[in-house]
């Protein structure tokens, strides 16, 4: 493709160092994510999925290699990147509206105009009258929607989703997958999803990256069929080709699990 990737990992390696020693979490990762693309990272636990997201977000610098965002090296967290965590972590002492606006407040962009955008965003995500309520009054699914509003409020180009649906009931989870997919598609956002749920990866993504562990590295890449991509996650799950994709991912992951790899620690 001629267009420059919005997000690029170059020869990325990361070593965690603590009092007990050093361990190699990632080794020589190369990845390009195009604008508007939805990419999922799947792999066994301990394959460094969350490390990859943290490096993309600029939470800490990689030991070796570069993370490029719009062609520039990422030096720290920026408002170009939004991050959704597994739990909502809404602040119990703030109203829903103030929770959703916390990113704007930190970047000094909280104005009456941007607060209107926050209200619109909450309405768009199905929480029209909840602005003045407190998080403990909301259900888990509603809280995770507020977390999505909080992430979108700062207008990031890239969304990093760190298993944001895994703590929810299946029913709510499927609804929220649809909502997130639709919202991101409509806004033309780029997204990287980390998940251990292969069905979720198959239903939502354009491309799935399978990671191996010890150390974390890219094992293979599965491009999802055009027919599945075009549909919402809920609709995609009903197609016969969805099952085939799921089984292919399953086989890849099984193959990954069989390999031991060397342990560095």
């Amino acid at each position: 493709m001629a267009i420059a990737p919005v997000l690029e990992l170059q020869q990325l390696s990361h070593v965690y160092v603590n009092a007990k020693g050093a361990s190699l979490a990632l080794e020589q990762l190369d990845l390009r994510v195009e604008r508007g693309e939805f990419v999922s990272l799947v792999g066994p636990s301990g394959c460094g999925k969350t490390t990859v997201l943290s490096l993309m977000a600029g939470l800490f610098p990689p030991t070796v290699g570069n993370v490029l965002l719009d062609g520039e090296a990422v030096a720290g967290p920026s408002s170009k990147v939004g991050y959704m965590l597994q739990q909502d972590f809404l602040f119990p002492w703030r109203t829903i509206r103030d929770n959703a606006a916390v990113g704007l407040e930190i970047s000094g962009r909280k104005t009456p105009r941007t607060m209107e955008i926050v209200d619109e965003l909450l309405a768009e995500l199905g929480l029209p009258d909840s602005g003045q309520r407190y998080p403990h009054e909301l259900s888990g699914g509603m809280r995770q929607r507020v977390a999505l509003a909080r992430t979108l409020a700062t207008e990031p180009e890239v969304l990093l989703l760190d298993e944001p649906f895994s703590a929810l009931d299946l029913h709510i989870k499927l609804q929220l997958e649809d909502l997130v997919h639709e919202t991101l598609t409509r806004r033309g956002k780029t997204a990287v999803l980390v998940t251990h749920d292969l069905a979720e990866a198959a239903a939502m993504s354009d491309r799935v990256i399978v990671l191996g562990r010890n150390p974390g590295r890219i094992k293979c890449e599965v491009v999802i069929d055009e027919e599945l991509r075009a549909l919402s996650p809920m609709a995609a799950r009903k197609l016969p080709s969805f099952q085939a994709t799921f089984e292919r991912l399953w086989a890849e992951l099984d193959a990954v699990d069989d390999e031991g790899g060397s342990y560095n620690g």
Partner: protein
Amino acid sequence: MDKRDSMRSNGDGDSGSVQIAGVKEDRLSWMGALHASYRSRMHKMSAAVAVTQIALLVLFVGLWEAAGRNKWIDPLLFSYPSKMADQLWRTMTDGSIWPHVGMTVGETVAGFALGMLLGTSMAAALWWFPFLSRVFDPYLVVLNSMPKVALGPIFIVALGPGFISIVAVTMSVTVIITTLNIYNRFREIDAGFIKVVRLFGASRGQLFRLVILPASFPVIISTLKVNVGLAWVGVIVGEFLVAKLGLGYLIIYGFQVFNFTLVLSSLVVIAAVATVMYQLVAMLERKLTAGWRER
């Protein structure tokens, strides 16, 4: 009407059967009756608690009064309630007690507020500079286990006998435990909350203001509540050591001249003022944590 509609649909979902109007009405009144009986049970419970509380107080005061008047206990040592009430009333009307109350309340509030401010600031400094917290950790542990009132004589020598040294004793009683409690809370705050603001690029100051401090309000308040009691210990001991004015001075003076009515009535005043202070802290708590609670 709305409420009834929603109830009907819930009921339909549960039973899966066709509803007859009469049955639905029955259910509504049945649920209303259940709620009413629950409320009346709770009401009775609260009333019983209040009655028992008052009965206990009356019994205690009455027994004390009877024991004192009939010389079952030595009235010189243990006094009795009507004598204390008489003493309080006399000193309140001739105005002689108010300077003592004013002095002690002033010392307590000053020592309490200083201890709280200094303790919170020290906790913030330890959080801000992890190096400092590593350095001071053993010293804080030693200081915390030491009886701070024992420092009283040193304060009196250094700051002179009077208001300042009593405030210093009071502050020293509260400041270390305040620092430790609040600092420990700062450190315990869920990493997820911190990650949320860090991902938005928050500075350390923003992190403190937006997360660390508000998330610690409940612990700060409960520390305040404990400190109300501790501050009184500091003030009374300080006044025992040095004062010429104050409720602690009245207690020690009454003890020396064998006027135990004075001792015990001063204690009653302390209990009353301490309760008022505690209620003020509780009001602050409601204001600071309005609306939210831990999940």
